[in-house]
């Protein structure tokens, strides 16, 4: 993993507030449909699933398909009632996972 994920989460929020989260991961998202110079198919290698958990409970998830461009970017909103930790997970076709945590204080 050459690049660390870029994540934007507010440090603080009010109870019941809807906050915006942005994430971006550097990844080639190789579709499996391209050919190399020799004419052979370049094997598919994409992030096929992204999840965001908050204090262990799933807050957001989605499956990704080969048509999604390189460096997948997500923006979504979450309503918060308590302080805690987000865990972001990107699952690669090769079985590896990239994770990152961000904490937020809710008052």
């Amino acid at each position, binding site marked *: 993993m050459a690049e660390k994920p*870029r994540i*934007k989460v507010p440090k603080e929020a009010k109870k019941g507030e809807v906050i915006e989260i942005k994430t*971006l991961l*550097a990844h080639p998202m190789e579709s499996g449909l391209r050919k190399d110079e020799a004419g052979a198919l370049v094997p598919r290698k994409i992030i096929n699933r992204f999840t965001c958990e908050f204090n262990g409970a799933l807050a957001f998830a*989605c499956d990704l398909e080969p048509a999604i461009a390189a460096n997948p970017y997500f923006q*979504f909103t979450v309503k918060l009632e308590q302080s805690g930790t987000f865990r972001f997970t990107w699952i690669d076709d090769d079985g590896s996972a990239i994770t990152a945590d961000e904490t937020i204080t809710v008052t």
Partner: protein
Amino acid sequence: MRFASLAAIFALVALGAGAQASGAAAQSGGAAPLALDGDASARPWRRYHEWPQRDATKFNTLATLASPPAPTAPRKLAGPLAGDPAIGAKLAADRTRGGSCLACHVMGPAGGADLPGNLGPDLSEIGNANLSDETLFNFIYDARVYVPDTLMPPWGTHGIFNDEEIGHIVAFLKTLKAPAPFKSELDDPSRRPPPVEKRDNLDSMLNPAMWAVEDKAPALWTSPGPAGAACATCHREPAQAFKTWAATMPRWEPRLGKILGVEEFVTRHAKATTGHAWPMESEANTALAVYLRFLANRSAINVDTESAPAKAAYARGEALSRRKVGQLNFACVDCHGAHRGAGKWIRGQWLAQMRGTLDHFPTWRTSLQAIWDVRKRFQWCQVAIWANELPPDAKEYGDLELYLAAQSNGLKLNVPGIRH
């Protein structure tokens, strides 16, 4: 969930620098140490393998003159040409031959091609002009016999089309007798809106070149080289120390006898101090060039063109910008000069004027998923006009960079840019 980019947040970048005073070596006011030996990029220079490998050694480069001379008189034809207009229509739209006639001329629906350019005149009704076969033939073979400062490539003299093919194109031209129909405003180069770049180029969520500023360059800055020192050993507070430096580059370097840009400076200065091998156009070199120019953002470009050696380099750069190079025989000013190609279209590509081109380099190329510094951009310009490029540290590129930077004097740096 939305994949679309949106109103960007300006990310204030935390620069990995302490608050201590800068090192004595960087404060001494003397000339910065530079390794003066060797080249700052690979020799022999090898073209990027994913670029077209067409060899153009028979034609001018920015360093050498090799193109065949222009003919002094039109060629005489033995009689009327017997070309096939259908073959001519295909040749006129053949992208493997220098981008096709449609790259520069509106010619009606030839070859089913859309998005014609307008660098040259509209030829939709050239068939009504009653021009002789010989005149049309010579305009294509080498238009310089009629218009010495023409932009048009000498298709015959430079061996891109042979006589028979030019005959087919002449036959096709004679069939053009009605104004070109345009399917839409976009299809008409006179109404096609110029591209406007609105993305926030300093938002790392939008511009991956910002990762060089936020992650790669700060890591390189503190990594010791073989000599034991890191950039940070002498430059502890880069955000303060480099607020304006990059806006004064490139500049004349008497020890090298050439114009030195940020990228070559990084190579030679690192070699002389930390011992890092950071050749031009390497990932590390480009990341540091982005970083150093980013630190001077909002400073007005202010390159020296007044001192005697700088004035001479500027004059050489201006002359190079007018030199016809490559098999397609274009000069920089043909496409990017005021009253020449600037603001016009080559097919769907809009031609920028020279002022304002250097303020955002190095820039992210969304179509290539890569950062290009200005020397790589020069190299690609040349390969695109079927000329052999020079190594990035060529002195000719230094002169040209100075000339181009001076056209942007007074504009504020805004690096890294983001472009298609």
